[in-house]
C-alpha cells in the first residue's frame, strides 16, 4: 500500500477555547478501507470526523484527502489561510456525511431529500436526479417510501434515507457519526446491514460507533481515541481483543459488562 492514502491525518489539533479536544491525531485511511473510531464520550471522536470534511476547522496539523489539503490553501504551516468557500464546497461534495440525528430536511419528501443535493450541487436535471435518487433508495430498500415525509418514517428508515441521500451523490468516501446511536435497538440492524453492504462494495468508510459487533466484523481497523489522542490503532481483532493499553481494556470491559447484563 504505497499509494497516496484516501485520508491522511497528520498531527491534527483542535481546541474549543481553552479545551484541547484533539491533541495531535495522526491516522491514514486507505482506499476501500473501513476504519471504526471508538472511545469514551467526549474523547473527540465526532470532532475528528467533522474535521475530515471541515465541518469543524482544525487548528494545526494536516488532513489530506487524495493528497489534497482539506480546508486550507496548501502552503507552509505558518501562513496558511482557509480555502475559499468554492473550493471547500468542491472538496465536500465527494464526501458523504451521515449524522447521528439523520438531519433530513423535514419539509421535503424522501425522494426530494435525496434529489436536493443532486439538483443544487451536481446540477443534474430533474429527470436524471429522480432516476439516481430511485437507485439510491433501492439500495437502502426504501423505494416504497419515496413519497413519504421523513417525520412519518421510523428512525431506522430515516437513517437509511440519510444514507441514500449521501450515496446518491456518489461519494468516494463516507463518514458516519454514530449512525445507530439514536435508534431503538430493533432498528439498529437494518442500518448496519446497509453499511455492511457498502463496505463489501469497497466504499471507504470512517465510522464513529459504539457498535462493537460492527467494529469487530466489518471494520478493517479500529482506532481508539482517549482525551484527544489515538492511543491504539490496528486490525480490529487486535485492538478489540488483544490491546495492551489499560484504557482500551477498561473501556471494552465496561462495554462487555453493560451488554452482557
Amino acid at each position, binding site marked *: 500500500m504505497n499509494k497516496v492514502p484516501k485520508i491522511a491525518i497528520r498531527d491534527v489539533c483542535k481546541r474549543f477555547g481553552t479545551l484541547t479536544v484533539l491533541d495531535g491525531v495522526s491516522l491514514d485511511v486507505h482506499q476501500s478501507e473501513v476504519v471504526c473510531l471508538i472511545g469514551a464520550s467526549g474523547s473527540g471522536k465526532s470532532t475528528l470526523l467533522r474535521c475530515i470534511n471541515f465541518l469543524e476547522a482544525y487548528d494545526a496539523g494536516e488532513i489530506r484527502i487524495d493528497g489534497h489539503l482539506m480546508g486550507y490553501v496548501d502552503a507552509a504551516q505558518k501562513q496558511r489561510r482557509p480555502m475559499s468557500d468554492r473550493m471547500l464546497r468542491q472538496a465536500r461534495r465527494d464526501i458523504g456525511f451521515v449524522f447521528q440525528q439523520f*438531519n433530513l430536511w423535514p419539509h421535503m419528501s424522501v425522494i426530494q431529500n435525496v434529489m436536493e443535493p443532486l439538483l443544487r450541487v451536481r446540477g443534474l436535471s430533474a429527470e436524471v436526479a429522480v432516476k439516481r435518487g430511485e437507485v439510491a433508495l433501492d439500495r437502502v430498500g426504501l423505494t416504497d417510501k419515496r413519497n413519504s415525509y421523513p417525520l412519518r418514517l421510523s428512525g431506522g428508515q430515516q437513517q437509511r434515507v440519510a444514507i441514500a441521500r449521501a450515496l446518491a451523490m456518489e461519494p468516494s468516501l463516507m463518514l458516519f457519526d454514530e449512525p445507530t446511536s439514536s435508534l431503538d435497538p430493533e432498528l439498529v440492524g437494518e442500518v448496519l446491514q446497509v453499511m455492511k453492504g457498502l463496505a463489501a462494495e469497497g466504499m471507504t468508510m470512517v465510522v464513529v460507533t459504539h457498535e462493537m459487533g460492527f467494529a469487530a466484523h466489518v471494520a478493517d481497523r479500529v482506532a481508539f481515541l482517549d482525551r484527544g489522542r489515538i492511543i491504539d490503532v490496528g486490525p480490529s481483532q487486535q485492538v478489540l481483543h488483544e490491546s495492551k493499553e489499560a484504557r482500551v481494556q477498561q473501556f471494552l470491559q465496561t462495554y462487555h459488562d453493560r451488554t452482557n447484563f
Partner: protein
Amino acid sequence: MNMLQTLWHYAPLLLSGAGVTLWTWLLGSVLGLAIGASVALLRRLPVRPLQWVLRIYIEIIRGTPFLLQLFLLYSGGPSIGIRLSALTAGVVCLGVHAGAYFAEVFRAGFEGLPKGQIEAASSFGMTSFQILYRISLPTMLVAIFPSIVSILISLSKETVILSIITVPNLMYQVQSMTVETYSAFSGIAALAVFYWVFVECVARFSALIEYRLTLFARRDSAEVRA
C-alpha cells in the same frame, strides 16, 4: 331615517372606506414583511453600530403607541423635510410599525433553526444562498407562520387609527356619517361587522395555509405526490 336606511344611503362611501382600509393593510403588511425580513437578515451581520441602530429601531417601535409614531411621521415629518400624503404616511407607518414586530419574529425563527439540517446541507457542498432559500427559509416559515398571522391581525386593527390623519378609510367615513346623521349606532355596527368579517377571513385563510404548510409533520394524513 332608520339604521338600515342610513347604512344604505352611505353604502358607497362606506365601501370605498372599507377598500381603503384593506388596501392600507395590504400595503402595510407587505412593507412590514420586507422591512422585518431585511432587518432580521441585517442583524446577522457582525457590524456593531448597525446592530445598535436596528436594536433601537425595534425597541422604539415596540415601546411606543402606534398613534404617536403616526403623528411623528405625518405632523413632525415636514419639519425635517419629509412631506407625505396622509395615505402614504399611513402605509409607511404601518409598514415600519409591523416591521419591528416581524423582525423579532424572523430573528427568533433564525435562532430556532435546527443546526443539523443546515450542517447536512453544507456537508453536501450547497452554497449559503441555496441553504437559505431551500432549507432555512422554508423551515423557518413553517415555524413562525402563526406569529406572522397574529401580527397581520393586530395590524388590521391599527388601520383604524389612520383616520386620525384623514386617511379616508372605513373609520373616517363612519365618523363623517355619524357627524352628519347623529346615528352613532349605525357606524359602530358597520365597523364591528366589517372588522369581524375581515379578521375572520384572515384567520380562516391562514389556518388553511398553515394546514398545507405543516402537512409534512402530520403522521396521520395521506402520502404526498412528489
